[in-house]
């Protein structure tokens, strides 16, 4: 008996060292932690339960039959984050460069299946050179099995990917199918075709970092939702994000004790909107002042900054926030902003997270680049996402809500449950000057008449009262009382239920 136990200890020790101390040292020298160290930090101390520690590949070509390392390049299992269960896998770069084999894929699929069956999120830490080339199509089949599972799990449990090393070729599609992708600056990159191939095929010369580093994917491509300075910061932030997320599509948002009165008045909000309607202000200040304890986890902070998306809490429960940012492009909606917000709204709706929408939007960004880029279809994504959302929707119009953009930003007509407006709100088809140019074209040469028309238009439409008279606004509220109003609205809406017509699924304008 003791002999077997000794053997178990020895085999465990063997498995834990992965590709060996040399490779671990190399990993450390690159400023990267090993797969096991990462999981150790990600999960509550002592909570990790490992599966398939002794799994080995079954490849026989190219000398692989002579080389076997326990675990086969991925560490899998489950554990807890602040006591809540989570299923995890972390690719081990010290073992065959973390390359994906048939058996590695099987280990990952096992985790995905368990997560779905048991209603808990999946966090994958990617650090892999790509497919296990020695295995050929078996490796590709493995990838595809993982993809299929990603798709099945989508909308069932939250899936988070953290890219902590290379992720190239087919490997990128598993993260791409998950809800969130985060990257580590300077040590991670993602692309379908690497710089070497690019150089031969298209003569394009580009570094891996430029082509697919964290900066590229968080500012240009929007593939990634956030980037962090190092492994440790990334993992700490994932723990922070995890506390905002429901465990599954049936669990509802988590709740935790909070130390911030729901009826906290904030008189500084009465002056946040400048007197001059053409001056910008930082909507993030409003978000932070509405949130419990000013805690806000922003999603895609570096992309399409004209709209802000992220999670906060109200009375201890998670709320998704979508807010136009007047500081950037005057808060206009464009293709990128629409796509960013639409995807965020879809996530919240999947997992029953209520959505707070803060509106200050002068319209859609005009221009050929927008029209040629398909802003019609991208704008429709956000429209569709809001229109189909069945979670509690609370909307606050702080200033401008003009034209088509008004129709998109969770108005009453699209399913907004409670729609508030600040006294500074201007709800109209367009601004005064533009409107007068169309309505009173013949008087344009007469400056006095035009000024009178502008004043008349401003009086009539550039206030929240026209909309309030129609019931399109439930109430005009004082900015200082916004937290109280919004918190009470969400409290009232907690049991909201709406019936939908039967359909297989809708056809959103992808």
């Amino acid at each position, binding site marked *: 008996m003791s002999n077997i136990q000794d053997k178990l200890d020895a085999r465990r020790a063997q498995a834990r060292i992965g590709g060996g101390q040399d490779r671990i040292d190399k990993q*450390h020298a690159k*400023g990267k*932690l090993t797969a096991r*160290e990462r999981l*150790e*930090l990600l999960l*509550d*101390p*002592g*909570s990790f339960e490992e599966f398939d520690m002794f799994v080995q590949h079954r490849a026989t070509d190219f000398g692989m039959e002579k080389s076997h390392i326990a675990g086969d390049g991925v560490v899998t299992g489950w554990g*807890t*984050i*602040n*006591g*809540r*269960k989570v299923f995890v896998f972390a690719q081990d770069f010290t073992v065959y460069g973390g390359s994906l084999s048939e058996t590695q894929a099987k280990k990952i699929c096992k985790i995905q299946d368990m997560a779905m069956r048991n209603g808990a999120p999946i966090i994958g830490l990617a650090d892999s050179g790509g497919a296990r080339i020695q295995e050929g199509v078996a490796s590709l089949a493995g990838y595809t099995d993982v993809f299929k599972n990603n798709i099945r799990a989508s909308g069932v449990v939250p899936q988070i990917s953290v890219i902590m090393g290379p992720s190239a070729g087919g490997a990128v599609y598993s993260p791409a199918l998950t809800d969130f992708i985060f990257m580590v*600056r*300077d040590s991670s990159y993602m692309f379908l075709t690497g710089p070497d191939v690019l150089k031969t095929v298209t003569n394009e010369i580009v570094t891996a970092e430029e082509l697919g580093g964290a900066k590229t994917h968080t500012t240009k491509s929007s593939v990634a939702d956030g980037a962090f*300075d*190092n*492994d*440790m*910061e990334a993992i*700490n*932030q994932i*723990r*922070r994000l995890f*506390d905002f997320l429901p*465990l599954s599509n049936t*669990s509802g948002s*988590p*709740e*935790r*004790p*909070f*130390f*911030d009165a729901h009826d906290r008045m904030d*008189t*500084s*909000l*009465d*002056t*946040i909107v400048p*007197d001059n309607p053409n001056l910008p*202000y930082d909507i993030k*200040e409003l978000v932070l002042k509405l949130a*419990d*304890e*000013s*805690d806000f986890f922003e999603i895609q902070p570096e992309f399409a900054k004209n709209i802000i998306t992220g999670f906060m809490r109200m009375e201890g429960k998670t709320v998704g926030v979508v807010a136009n940012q007047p500081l950037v492009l005057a808060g206009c909606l464009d293709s990128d902003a629409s796509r960013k917000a639409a995807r965020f709204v879809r996530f919240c709706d999947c997992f029953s997270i209520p959505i707070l929408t803060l509106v200050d939007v002068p319209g859609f960004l005009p221009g050929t680049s927008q029209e040629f880029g398909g802003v019609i279809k991208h704008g429709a994504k956000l429209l569709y996402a809001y229109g189909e959302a069945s979670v509690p929707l609370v909307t606050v119009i702080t200033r401008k809500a003009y034209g088509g953009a008004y129709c998109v930003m969770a108005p009453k007509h699209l399913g907004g449950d409670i729609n508030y407006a600040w006294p500074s709100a201007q709800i109209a088809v367009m601004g005064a000057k533009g409107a007068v140019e169309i309505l009173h074209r013949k008087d344009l040469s007469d400056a006095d008449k035009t000024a009178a028309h502008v004043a008349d238009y401003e009086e009539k439409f550039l206030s929240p009262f026209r909309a309030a008279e129609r019931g399109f606004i439930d109430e005009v509220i004082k900015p200082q009382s916004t937290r109280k109003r919004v918190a009470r609205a969400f409290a009232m809406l907690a049991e909201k239920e709406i019936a939908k017509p039967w359909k297989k699924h809708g056809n959103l304008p992808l």
Partner: protein
Amino acid sequence: MTKPIKKILIANRGEIACRVIKTARKMGIKTVAVYSDADKNALHVSMADEAIHIGASPASESYLVMDKIMDAIKQSGADAVHPGYGFLSENPVFAEKLKKAGVTFIGPNPHAIVSMGDKITSKKLAQEAGVSCVPGHMGLIDDAEHAVKISNQVGYPVMIKASAGGGGKGMRIAYNDTEAREGFQSSKNEAANSFGDDRIFIEKFVEQPRHIEIQVLGDKHGNVIYLNERECSIQRRNQKVIEEAPSPFLTPQTRKAMGEQSVALAKEVNYDSAGTVEFIVDQDQNFYFLEMNTRLQVEHPVTEMITHIDLVEQMIRSAQGEELKLKQEDVQMDGWAIESRIYAEDPYRNFLPSIGRLRRYRPPAEGARSDGTIVRNDTGVFEGGEISMYYDPMIAKLCTWGEDRGEAIKAMKYALDSFELEGIGHNIPFCAAVMAHDRFERGDISTAFIAEEYPDGFLGVDLGKGHHRHIAAVCAILHDISAHREAQISGSLANHRRHIPDVWAVQVKDDHFTVKLRDAQGGTILAAIDEDSDKATVEIEVMTRWHPGERLARVYIDNKPMVLKIKPRPEGFDVHYRGSDLKVAVRNPRAAQLAKLMPIKLAPDTSNLLLCPMPGVIVKVMVAEGDEVQDGQALAVVEAMKMERWKIRCAQRVNASLPK
């Protein structure tokens, strides 16, 4: 004889307008505020009984326009005007206009303003009144050669000054003939540009001087008393930053002599309000008359705190013709008061003015504290208010009072630690640094203090290991409290909750500590701190009622109060304490081990980027598209706030394009 004032218009803005309104209200007098476009939502506007708009944002189009003030007086029916300081406060024409209109000016008579307003006249009067003056030439200087001759007579070093000067403008120090020649010319040019008056005079320059001033108070019945001194030696570019009363330097004899000479001078001009006689004092208690300010001084609160006299009230009473009830022997000198001027200036960027929205503004609570000290904060702003580019960047005057100087300093340190200000750059860290400076604590100061002690600008404070140890213990406890809250999230596995260790590895700058926490009696926590460097364990007792989300952590360490400004990060806190901005990491011991493997990342090189240090108007662009520029070459001139213009220079030789 007395004519009670019923309604005061305050021809000013900001904290001083609010200050005057407070006393007027206490006396049952109605108040009228005036405001420019930029001040539409200002605090003084909402505090006053009524408010009248007087024009565009620049002071030259509003607060300085006499006709607009006169209209506002007529419109509101005010029977008196308090001018505050600055703006029209020392303008004899304005005082004369009010007199003609039958409106009471709450300030001295126009004759006193005129006589003291001119540096040469005031000096002559001072000499006649027997006031000690700086050796110098009483006449005007004709030309550069004359300047050299006079300088030699007076003896170097000399100060070349514009007669109409103030705030350091039109002032030069010369140590030799060449400098005297150059100094004369540049003072003259600057004076002509700044004041439209290029009269220049020369006097001896006193080295290592202290700036000490005497507060006087007079009535219309010939009575004048002095309310002791204020020391204002902590100055930056001739702008006062920290003031105190009394001075830690003056002997009772010097105080008495200065006071009596000040009274003599005031009587010489029939001074009938609150005023200040400024002196410089050398290391041997010799004092020299500098000038007399015929108005309420910015730093008047410190005098009020040690004398228990409301100066604004006394000004109002004098103005309505009442006889001064106080006699010289009634004037107290009770305890010690210190004032820190909180400016919207970034101390880490050479005190560059900073403008913008006050996202967070939470000054410490005013009034008496449990340890017997008193906090007072004179302010004209509020959370959500705006610091605009049009006016003086002063946000508040934070004052503390204590039984003695040590107590007042201690109270100021605590008050600065708990002063929350966000959205703009501010000098709170700098004020805190001065308070903890041993030269300041010893009272060994002069007007050169800042230049001598911070020759390379302010680079923050290194608190040292003792403070770091306390900060480490506090952060470990706060982190521990946060961790316990996180572990209470819903949906956790009932019997498998997160285990939270009682040992934390804390890093404060380069100091590493291991903090072991243990609950003790009465809600206190015992923190045993080990340092990596030496093995001795230090145990301290900490008490706090802090909750996650609170941005001020008030704690008692071994029964001594301490307050830190904190912002949580997933792995610790950003801490602001005693002028030091710290990133504090709190980790479990295993995480601390792994943290050592994390690469240190360097900030990207931005030397080839050109960023304007603050919003302002580009007055001049000194390069053209395609020009090749050298290191340090001036590229453009920017003007902003009350700052003099400055040049944006190139940090690195580049050849760049010019944005349109």
